C-alpha cells in the first residue's frame, strides 16, 4: 500500500510515532520509507517490527541508489576495486553522496568529491575522501564521475552565486571533456538539470549511462525486496 504524507507529521498534530502505529496496524511486513528527515528509517526500526528499507532520508543516505550506481559501474567497467570515482556537485545537501562514499569505499574504490567549498561538508575528508575544487582535475584524475543534481529548491541555493556560475565552473560539457581528453564514465542519479550540472549534449552523449542506471535500478530494488522480504540469511 502507498502511504504519503507531505511535510512533517507535526503539521497534522499527529506524532510521527502515531503515523507509524497506524501503518503497523495494517499488518505490513515491510516498510519502504522515503522521508525528508534524516534518521527516520533508524527511528522506524526501533518502533516497528517490520523490515525497513531506506529509500532516502533527508540529506543523509540513499542506499538503494548507491547499490544501483555501483552495479551500473561494475556492469560497464567490470570491477569496482581500484577504480577512482568522483562525486561531483552538491555533496552537502545530497543523500546520494554519503551512500556512494560508504558503498564504493567498501568495494575498494577510491572516492573523491568535487564542488565549490560551500557545497562540501567541512569534515568530509575525515571519511577518507579527497576533496577537489577544480573540475578539470576531477575529470583527469578519475575513471568515473557521479554527477549530482544541483538542488535549486533547497537551502543549497544560498551556498553558491548562481546556476550560471555553477555551470561555468563545474558543469560537465563537451568542451571540458575534450579539453581533458579523458575517457570518463558519467553517472547521474536523475532528474537532470540540463544546462546546470551537465549539458544536454553530454547528458545524451556516449560517456553517460544514465538510462542504464534507471533500468538497473529496477533490478537492484527487486533484488532488495526479494532478499529482505524473504528474510534470506536469517535463521528459520
Amino acid at each position, binding site marked *: 500500500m502507498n502511504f504519503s504524507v507531505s511535510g512533517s507529521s507535526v503539521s497534522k498534530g499527529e506524532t510521527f510515532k502515531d503515523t507509524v502505529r497506524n501503518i503497523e496496524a495494517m499488518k505490513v511486513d515491510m516498510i519502504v520509507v522515503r522521508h525528508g*528527515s534524516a534518521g527516520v528509517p533508524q*527511528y522506524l526500526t526501533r518502533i516497528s517490527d517490520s523490515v525497513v528499507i531506506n529509500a532516502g532520508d533527508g540529506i543523509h543516505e540513499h542506499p538503494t541508489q548507491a547499490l544501483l550506481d555501483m552495479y551500473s559501474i561494475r556492469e560497464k567497467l567490470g570491477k569496482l576495486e581500484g577504480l577512482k570515482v568522483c562525486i561531483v556537485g552538491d555533496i552537502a545537501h545530497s543523500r546520494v553522496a554519503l551512500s556512494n562514499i560508504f558503498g564504493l569505499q567498501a568495494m575498494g574504490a577510491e572516492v573523491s568529491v568535487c564542488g565549490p567549498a560551500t557545497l562540501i561538508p*567541512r569534515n568530509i575528508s575525515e571519511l577518507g575522501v579527497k576533496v577537489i575544487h577544480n573540475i578539470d582535475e576531477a575529470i583527469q584524475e578519475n575513471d568515473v564521475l557521479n554527477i549530482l543534481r544541483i538542488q535549486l529548491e533547497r537551502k543549497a541555493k544560498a551556498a553558491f552565486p548562481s546556476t550560471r556560475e555553477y555551470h561555468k565552473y563545474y558543469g560537465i560539457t563537451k568542451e571540458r571533456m575534450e579539453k581533458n581528453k579523458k575517457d570518463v564514465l558519467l553517472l547521474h542519479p536523475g532528474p537532470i538539470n540540463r544546462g546546470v550540472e551537465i549539458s544536454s549534449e553530454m547528458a545524451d552523449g556516449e560517456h553517460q549511462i544514465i538510462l542504464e542506471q534507471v533500468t538497473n535500478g529496477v533490478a537492484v530494488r527487486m533484488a532488495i525486496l526479494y532478499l529482505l522480504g524473504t528474510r534470506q540469511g536469517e535463521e528459520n
Partner: protein
Amino acid sequence: MQTLLKNLRIIDTTLNIDQKADILIDNGNIEKIGTGIEVNDWNVDIHDMEGCIAAPGFIDIHVHLREPGREDEETVVSGCMGAAAGGFTAIASMPNTDPAADAAEIIESIITKSAKTPVDVYPIGAATIERKGEVLAPIGELVEAGAVAFSDDGVAIKTAGILRRIMEYASMYDAPVIEHCEDESMAGGSMNEGLNSTRFGLTSIPPIAEELTVARDIMMAEYTGAKVHIAHISTAKAVQLVREGKAKGIKVTAEVTPHHFTLTDDSLIDYDTNFKMNPPLRTKTDMLAMHEGLKDGTIDCIASDHAPHAIEEKEMEFEYAPNGILGLETTLGLTLNNLYHQGVLTIPQIIEKLVVNPRNILGIPVPVIREGEKANLTIFNPEKEYKVRVTGFKSKSRNSPFDGYTLKGAPVAIYNRGKFVISQVSG
C-alpha cells in the same frame, strides 16, 4: 517540630568546615551542631545519615519552568518538587515562558507560586520585551519584583546595540546578563557541526556560532563594565575565550550542563530526540575542555538547563523535535558519577560549583551550616549506586537521555524553609 540528622559529614566551604557531626534543627533553624546529640522527645524526627554528606543547599541557576504557558510540561510547583528530589534547595527560573517573564506581575506570580514549596525560586527576567531583542524589558521594575538576572535565553540578545543598553542598564542594579550564545545567522541546525553531522546527515550548528557570541559578549562586558554570565558553555574555544576574559579582569562567568560534561555527539547515532538540545552535544575534545574549565575555575558553576517537553513533542522526526532535556533530577548524580568519581573535581570543589559560585553570580546570599542560621541543606550520598528511572521523576515531563543509566552518587534529602524532603531519586 524538631529534626535530628545523625552521623553526617558536614562540609561547608564558606566556613571551611569538614567535620563529622549531628545537626538538630528546630522550626527551620539550626539549633545545635555536635557529635552524639541525644534527644528524649517522641516528637523529634530522627534520621541516621551515616555515609552522607551535608552541604549548604544546592542551587541550579538554569531551570525552565513552563508556567505560564505550558503547564502540561512543568509548573512552578512541579519544577520545585523535581528540584527538591534532585537535591536542590534553590533554582533560578528562565524567562522564556509564554508570555515571557518581561513584566513584574509574572516575576511576582512565580515567586508566589513557589512560596509553599521547600525550594527558593529566583526568577530571571527577560532582557527584552517578549525576548524579541528590540525593546528593553522594565529591568528596574523586574528587579523590584524579585528578578535576579536578565536573559533572552533560547536565543542570544539579538544585536550588539541592544546588548549594550541591557548591560548598561542592568549594571546599575549589579544584575548579570545571562547569555545563550548563538549567532542567529548560523542557528537552526539539529546537532553539532562536525564529522558526525556529515555521517548522520543532520543539519548542524557550527561551534563558531557559539564562540562568536561569547567573544562579542565578553568584549561588550569589558566595554560596559557589566557582568556577563555565559549559559551552557559547550565548546573548547568558548571556554578558552572565557579563560582569557577572566585573565583580563573582565566580569565574565560561565556554567556548564551535566550533559555537556558527560556526553558527545556520538550519542546521536540512533537519532534519539532525547539527545537533542541547544547548544548541541559537541565532540570529545569539547567535553574534555569542560572538565579542564571546571578544574581550573574558568567554568564557575554547574547548571542543568532543565527543559521539560511533552512526550508527543519528542516523538517526532529528529529535526522537528524541540531542543532540551530534563536536568534537575540527574544533575547531582551525573556530577558525582562523572566528575567526582572520575577525579575531575573534589567534593569541596563540587560544593563551590553548586552552592557558592552560582549564588555569587546572581548576587544572592550563600547559606552556611552554623548554629542559629536557617537550615538550608543538601544531603547526598556520594557512594550510593542506583539506576535512573524517569518514571519516578517528580518533574511532569520525561525527556531525559539518562533513563536507565547507572550512577554512583545520589541526592538523599534536602532541608529548607522548615521542610525536610527525602529524595526518591535513588529508589
